């Protein structure tokens, strides 16, 4: 079962979520501040970080940035609906998904599962490593090289790239991507997709404002290539 670090300043929410997850078999380390959470990462080695955005002192967005600076640890933000700007900033900072409070534990757990789920490599007809322009994508090894240099991709970024590149030239609507990559419902927040695409472009495109790999089709969605 996944090991989760929970950063939440409100004791009741912290206790409630911790209790709920632990009863479902997760190993949970709950901290009240971002600083404590960051400090716990090295020792606890979690599979996932559950991060409240509204924190005293160091806020969730800042915590998110520091984690992303040297780690691709999956991050799920805990937020309240309506804190829209915070959600966008958190997604830009590298969060993979978010959960709106208040939420039942089963909802939180479903998000955790979705983020941790790996995109399965297609059955072995394809070569282990695909070459798309300067990109080398190793589906089995879950690594991406750009110009032979490894690219550090967050879980959501990697999954999006693997999904799109599996069918180059095919257009996927944002709703479809929400369902396929994030396990969200059709009507969920497409900003997840947009923010993830932006982050991905910064990492793999030569010029993110003139993308080669992740292309936009206005009114319809995104596609990989064609190169």
């Amino acid at each position, binding site marked *: 079962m996944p090991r989760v670090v929970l950063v939440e300043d409100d004791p*009741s*929410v912290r206790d409630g979520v911790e209790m*709920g997850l632990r009863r479902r078999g997760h190993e949970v380390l709950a901290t009240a501040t971002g600083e404590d959470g960051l400090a716990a990462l090295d020792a606890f080695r979690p599979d996932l970080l559950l991060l409240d955005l509204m924190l005293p002192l160091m806020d969730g967005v800042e915590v998110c940035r520091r984690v992303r600076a040297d780690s691709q640890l999956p991050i799920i933000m805990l937020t309240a609906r309506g804190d829209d700007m915070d959600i966008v900033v958190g997604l830009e900072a590298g969060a993979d998904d978010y959960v709106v409070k*208040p939420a039942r*534990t*089963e909802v939180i757990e479903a998000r955790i599962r979705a983020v941790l789920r790996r995109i399965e490599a297609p059955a072995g007809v394809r070569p282990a490593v695909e070459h798309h322009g300067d990109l080398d994508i190793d589906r089995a090894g879950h690594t991406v090289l750009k110009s032979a240099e490894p690219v550090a991709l967050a879980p959501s970024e990697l999954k999006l790239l693997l999904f799109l590149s599996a069918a180059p030239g095919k257009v996927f609507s944002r709703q479809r991507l929400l369902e396929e990559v994030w396990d969200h419902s059709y009507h969920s927040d497409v900003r997840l997709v947009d923010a993830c695409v932006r982050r991905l472009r910064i990492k793999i495109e030569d010029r993110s404002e003139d993308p080669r790999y992740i292309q936009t089709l*206005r009114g319809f969605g995104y596609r990989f290539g064609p190169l």
Partner: protein
Amino acid sequence: MKIPGASAAFGVRTRLVLAFLLVAAVSAVTTAALTYREARSAVLERAQDTAVASFREEVERFVPGLPLDLEAVRWELYDIAARSKPHPWIVFAEYGSTRVSSGDRPVSGVLTEDLRRAARTAPHGSFQRVVKDGKAYLTIGMPVMTRVVAGGGAVPSGLILFAVMPMTNEETDIDALVTAARDGALPGLAVALVPALFAARSVLRPVRELRRAADSMGGGRLDARIAVRGRDEMADLARTFNSSAARLEHSVQELRDAGARARRFASDVSHELRTPLAGMLAVTDVLDEEAATLDPDTARAVRLISAETGKLAVLVEDLMEMSRFDARAAELTTDEVDAAEAVRRSLSGRKWQDRVRAELPEGIRIRLDPRRFDVIVANLVGNALHHGAEPVTVRLSSRAGSLITEVRDSGPGIAPDALPHVFDRFYKADAARSRSSGSGLGLAITQENVRLHGGTIRAQNAPGGGALFTVELPFDGPASGHGAPDGPATAHGEGPGTGPHTSTEAGA
């Protein structure tokens, strides 16, 4: 607020000017008439008095002696006629059956029988104005008395003298008066037009300002005021308007403040409720799982707490959503979607696809906020399933630039007195089922979401029975000014939903 042309033709300005001119005309005419009458009688009387007096005087000076010698009498008459005053007159003499005159004919056609009889019988002179053949004459009759002895009493001599004097000059004078009055009145009226226009202007300018100010207030600019000039009734009106406007502005401001405080309070309460709810909701699973192991009463209590916590969470979320609408903080995050697909996903996401008959023509694409559209469809269908009766039908169609979404149930419909209130917050058409489901905000939130898209929603009872909700959403998106038409993510121009539509065929 535009004045129709027809009434403008008889507007206040025209009426004021006409009234002014009427007054001026009436006074001019009255003055002229009075002047005319006075002048006329003055002119005529002066002429008459002069004529009568001088005729008497001349008669007494030149009276012929008795017995009458006709030739001698004629000369006397010539003498009298020669000294006519103020106008030439013709003298006629009657004595018995003798008739002599200073003119061509011995008898005048102008003298009336009345005057003759009066002169013959009355012991005094008489005169009469006669109009004959359109000409005015003054006729004077004088019975001549004679003294019986010098210095003694007098007896009628039987001699009667008449003078016939044309009054042409007097008529001319009077005509001249009338002409003068007319020539004076017309320029007078023209001159009266100037103060009339000025008066109308001075009266109408405040009225115009008042109208402009009232218009402004009607348009919501409650700080509209009028400049107060002078101390007349218009100034009083302006002052009254200003003070009323100030009071109104104050009252409205108070109401707005009160409303804002109430909304802020609701929002704050929701926020404060959310945190404890977040903790509670996270552990409801624990309660549900452990309930089976508890004794029945405790289990019921635990399950009740769990279930109501869930409802409370929904209620708080709806309250917060409502607060965002009230604060106009709700934003649209639009995307171009297939309408049929969106509805289908709303139904399937809630496992309703088997309970709802869907008539969803393919190929209708529309730019909207998918999450909010999902809320609209889900709330309407949920409302139909809970309060109406199955079968429930969802039908999509496009008409006149709008996407029409109709949700119809087969229940008894909505009570007529409840119909105007179905979109009110917390309105419960039926108290008995008030706790059956939902927060009581579902339809209100639906309505707000429709408005946010620039669309309309209406509720009615379908001809065949059952409630029918109809949502119209414009294809070309909401009018600007209410929320952001595009979400923050797409506002950067990188999202697929932004900008002109492409004709590229989707491969998905």
